[in-house]
């Protein structure tokens, strides 16, 4: 009997650090786990202070943007930029080899691979709505590199678009227990003449907050009322 108890205690002691490690990834890195609220940023240009440095093509697209073409009005995935700029929360789940962002908006996720792998060699030929992300720690800053984002999402509610050559570099820093600083750099040679960046802040939710199902198709009556001009992609 004593042996069983001892075995249980030893097992429990061995298991606890495993749990902690699984949650935080490493005791050397900040624990970013939790329920976080985005800082709503409907127009990236307002956060930047001016319009982004458009290429002639990018400017032409911006001048012709029509909000009726908003992909999320048709319940399409939001893309990695808008997932962090919409007025919706997300759950961050931090593991040693992968970090998960579970977004309430359109009930979609991003996985950030932290195990040293490269992007898939054919990701640019077969881009995806949320792209492919790898991550690494630079000190206390989580740096996320994302490519292979298809051109079917918008960067914000206002309608800033991007191409499938968009390269996102995001830096997440824990300011304090209740705030994360997110700095994102948009590098897209099709739409912009040079990379540009903005910084936003995420705020921790209440202890009772939880991510809830967001089934956009449940009752999307908006789609039948969306009207406006046309600005279809070539």
């Amino acid at each position, binding site marked *: 009997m004593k042996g069983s108890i001892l075995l249980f205690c030893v097992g429990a002691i061995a298991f606890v650090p495993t749990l902690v490690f699984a949650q935080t990834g490493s005791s050397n890195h900040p624990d970013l786990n939790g329920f976080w609220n985005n800082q*709503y940023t*409907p*127009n990236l240009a*307002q956060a930047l202070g001016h319009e982004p440095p458009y290429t002639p093509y990018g400017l032409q697209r911006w001048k012709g943007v029509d*909000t*009726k073409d*908003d992909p*999320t*009005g048709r*319940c399409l995935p939001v893309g990695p930029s808008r997932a962090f700029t*919409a*007025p*919706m929360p997300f759950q961050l789940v931090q593991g040693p080899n992968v970090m998960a962002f579970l977004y*309430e*908006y*359109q009930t979609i996720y991003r996985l950030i691979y932290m195990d040293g792998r490269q992007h898939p060699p054919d990701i640019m030929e077969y881009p995806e709505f949320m792209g492919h992300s790898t991550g690494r720690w630079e000190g206390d800053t989580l740096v996320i590199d994302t490519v292979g984002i298809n051109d079917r999402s918008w960067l914000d*509610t*206002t*309608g800033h678009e991007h191409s499938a050559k968009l390269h996102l570099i995001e830096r997440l820093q824990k300011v304090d227990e209740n705030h994360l600083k997110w700095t994102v750099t948009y590098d897209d040679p099709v739409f912009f003449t040079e990379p540009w960046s903005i910084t936003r802040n995420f705020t921790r939710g209440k202890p009772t*907050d939880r991510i*809830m*199902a*967001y*089934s*956009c198709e*449940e*009752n*999307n*009556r*908006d789609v039948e*009322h*969306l*009207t*406006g001009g046309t600005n279809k992609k070539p």
Partner: protein
Amino acid sequence: MRRYLLAVSGLCTGLLLAAIPLAAHHSFAAEYDNNKPIKFSGKVTKVEWMNPHIYVYVDANDNGKTVNYAVEGGAPNGLYRQGWRKDTLKAGDPISIEGFLAKDGSNTVNARTWVLPDGKKVFAGNNEDGGPAAKP
């Protein structure tokens, strides 16, 4: 007493969270016309507490004719976190709406304020969708 405390606590929560944004899954301008403001009072006929936005249908008198408006609100999850529930408004409840009509000429309305007969506002918050009175 417990019920009273719960009610007071719920109301306080609602007031405290009034400034929290209500989620919009597309921009205001995609569907609504800020040159078509509308204000009316009537009775709730149906509540659709569903994603991506709640819809409350309201019968209102328009020059002697009853018109059924489809009134759009915020996303149910955000409203829930602010303390509102799917039975906050029920069929038969009187309500006053201020909002904007859809561009397409239908009786679809984007509500900016919902007011009960006693003056209490429900579904408070900013419709942060780029529409009128929305925060930038």
